């Protein structure tokens, strides 16, 4: 039975209501407190480190994001670890929580389609994540201006904005994953555990697994050096299945302007090259573009999975 009208009716209402709920919820408060505190700590450490460095760096503000001081990891290191946690915290019970509270049927009794409900929940979560990432970015840049006494240059701002977009896409992937799992499993605890195990898999175990898998699939032949390259390429491609790896590569390309390639680079390609010279911003974008498009496609595909799973469910009062 086909129904009439726009499927997006009420989308913005749901998104805004969802965002407002998140912003006042205790779990959001805890997650954000964790992220902001670690961010302040790591950036403070990075500034301390930068102040002792004598060498001139044309991209000092980018170093704020990437400089690590023992025992703290760098700001982006923290983000790639904690952003998925925030996204999971926002969406692990987005669908099954409604069932749990027996509010789903009431919600759908309103004149809105399920499309709008799911998309609204996703967009609401994305809005909150966006606010969170922008706040973090402004916090870091502001601390940088205050403590370093320098304004960021135009290219640094551009690269910082690129960092914002990439971080948002990265957290959106985890938001979509959590949303999918919350519609897949009936119990919020199960979906939370499933999301957390995926998070652990990709952020901790994936880098250990890929060399093993690549070693099994393409064994090293000592007489054929090409197998070493093939094995490395396979391992690299496998590792790129993890959104965390994609995020890390994109940050390398954006925040280290001298990065020329994210993959394997032959000596012949570097002949005559001026090592250490920064790439134009457009070229850095070109380098990270495959990773970025893969990440965006991943968001769409995972969201589609969640969408199909949710649309096929039976909703009872």
């Amino acid at each position, binding site marked *: 039975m086909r129904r009439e009208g726009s499927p997006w009716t009420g989308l913005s209402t749901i998104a805004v209501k969802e965002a407002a709920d998140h912003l006042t919820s205790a779990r959001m408060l805890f997650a954000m407190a964790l992220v902001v505190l670690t961010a302040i700590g790591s950036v403070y450490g990075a500034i301390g480190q930068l102040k002792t460095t004598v060498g001139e760096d044309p991209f000092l503000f980018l170093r704020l994001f990437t400089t690590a001081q023992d025992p703290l990891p760098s700001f982006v290191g923290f983000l790639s670890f904690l952003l998925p946690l925030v996204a999971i915290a926002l969406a692990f019970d987005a669908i099954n929580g409604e069932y749990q509270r027996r509010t789903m049927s009431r919600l759908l009794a309103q004149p809105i389609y399920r499309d709008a409900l799911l998309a609204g929940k996703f967009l609401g979560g994305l809005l909150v994540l966006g606010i969170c990432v922008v706040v973090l970015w402004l916090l870091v840049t502001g601390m940088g201006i205050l403590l370093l006494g320098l304004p960021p240059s135009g290219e640094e701002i551009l690269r910082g904005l690129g960092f914002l977009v990439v971080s948002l896409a990265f957290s959106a992937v985890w938001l979509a994953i959590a949303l999918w799992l919350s519609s897949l499993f009936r119990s919020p605890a199960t979906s939370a555990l499933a999301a957390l195990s995926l998070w652990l898999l990709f952020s901790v175990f994936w880098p250990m697994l890929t060399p093993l898998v690549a070693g099994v699939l393409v064994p090293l032949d000592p007489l054929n050096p090409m197998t070493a390259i093939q094995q490395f390429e396979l391992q690299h491609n496998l590792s790129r299945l993890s959104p965390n790896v994609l995020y890390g590569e994109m940050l390398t390309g954006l925040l280290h302007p001298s990065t020329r390639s994210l993959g394997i*680079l032959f000596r012949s390609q570097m002949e*005559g090259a001026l090592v250490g010279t920064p790439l134009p911003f457009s070229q850095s974008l070109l380098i990270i573009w495959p990773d970025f498009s893969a990440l965006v496609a991943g968001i769409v595909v995972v969201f589609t999975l969640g969408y199909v799973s949710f649309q096929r469910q039976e909703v009872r009062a």
Partner: protein
Amino acid sequence: MRHGRTLLSALVVAGTALFALSPLHAGTAAAETPQLTGLWLTTDYPERNADFGDAIRIGLDLMNKNLPPQRVELSVDGLPDGWKSEIDGGGAAIEAAMVGTDRTVSLDLHLTPPKTAKAGTYAFEVEGKVVGQGEGRTMTLPVKLTLAAPKPAKLTLDPKLPDLRGTAKSSFDFELTLKNESLNDTVVNLAAAAPDGFEVAFTEGYGSQEITSLPVKAGASKTVHAKVHPPQNVAAGHYQVQVGAQSDVAKASANLELDVTGQPAVALEGPNGMLSGSATAGEERDFTFTVANSGSAPAHDLSLRADAPSGWKVKVDPKTLPELQPDQQQKVTVEVTPGDKAVAGDYMMSVRANGKGVSNSADFRITVMTSTMWGIIGVVVILIALMVLAVGVRRYGRR
């Protein structure tokens, strides 16, 4: 009175026999020539000239013939005010001399006229007073000294090698001898008049410090180097540099000749004077370089070459230039095709021009852009994902 009498005697000025022929010799004297007996104070040249400022030394001889040793006290009498005299014997100033039998004692009379002494003839006497046997006798030796007029203060400046040959890039180093031919120490200022653009620097001896003036003692000479640097773009030819030295009273000058031979110099310039450009991997790009001869002689057989990383294609047009006149320019097109697999970033390409005796190279920085093909593939991947979503929406939408 006594002066006037003794002045009349000429060569043997103060020889007076103290004794007549001794009784011992009386017998033999008759048979041979009569033996000369006596004590004399003599000089070889009792009348002489002296230059102003020269050290005056007059040789004196004290002779004793057939007499027992005599002690003679010596003094100089009749010198004008301000003159200093000293009688030296055996290397030391003396007041008296002892002359043995048949001996001659050589003495030196040193005279120092005052700075204010005027030219003219000065007469004075050297007196020898005999002490002891025959005491009271005085020998007088009149001397006449004509002091020439002082020479005017004079400086000389003589180049050792006044004609030098070299290229526009070489440094012409002239060695000059500066002499102060006057009685006074002085400070000499040095200056040079050279054609426009020529630089002249003076150094003393082998020192490296540039000087504009230097002190020269009276009568002394100093070695001064005049280093002349012609301007880089000077035309070949003869050039004259005049160097002058001036003290407060005198001056001197010398002419130095420079024979500058021509030399070609090749300059390479990138497009619009820039040494950087950008190119896309795998796509040809033209850069127009300018070869110019900034030297003073034609450059012959210039060959042009560009070195780029391997895998790149580089073509230079024209490859050779048979001749390039001074101040002439020639456009050279360098076609660069970065390799297909070139990674984005900055690369160095060096462009060289080699000719007979000249060469130059320019490092050209090329920013390689990669093609945007991958970007399109990324968009396609996202579009496919969106299509999957659209299929899902179409199949399950609006429930």
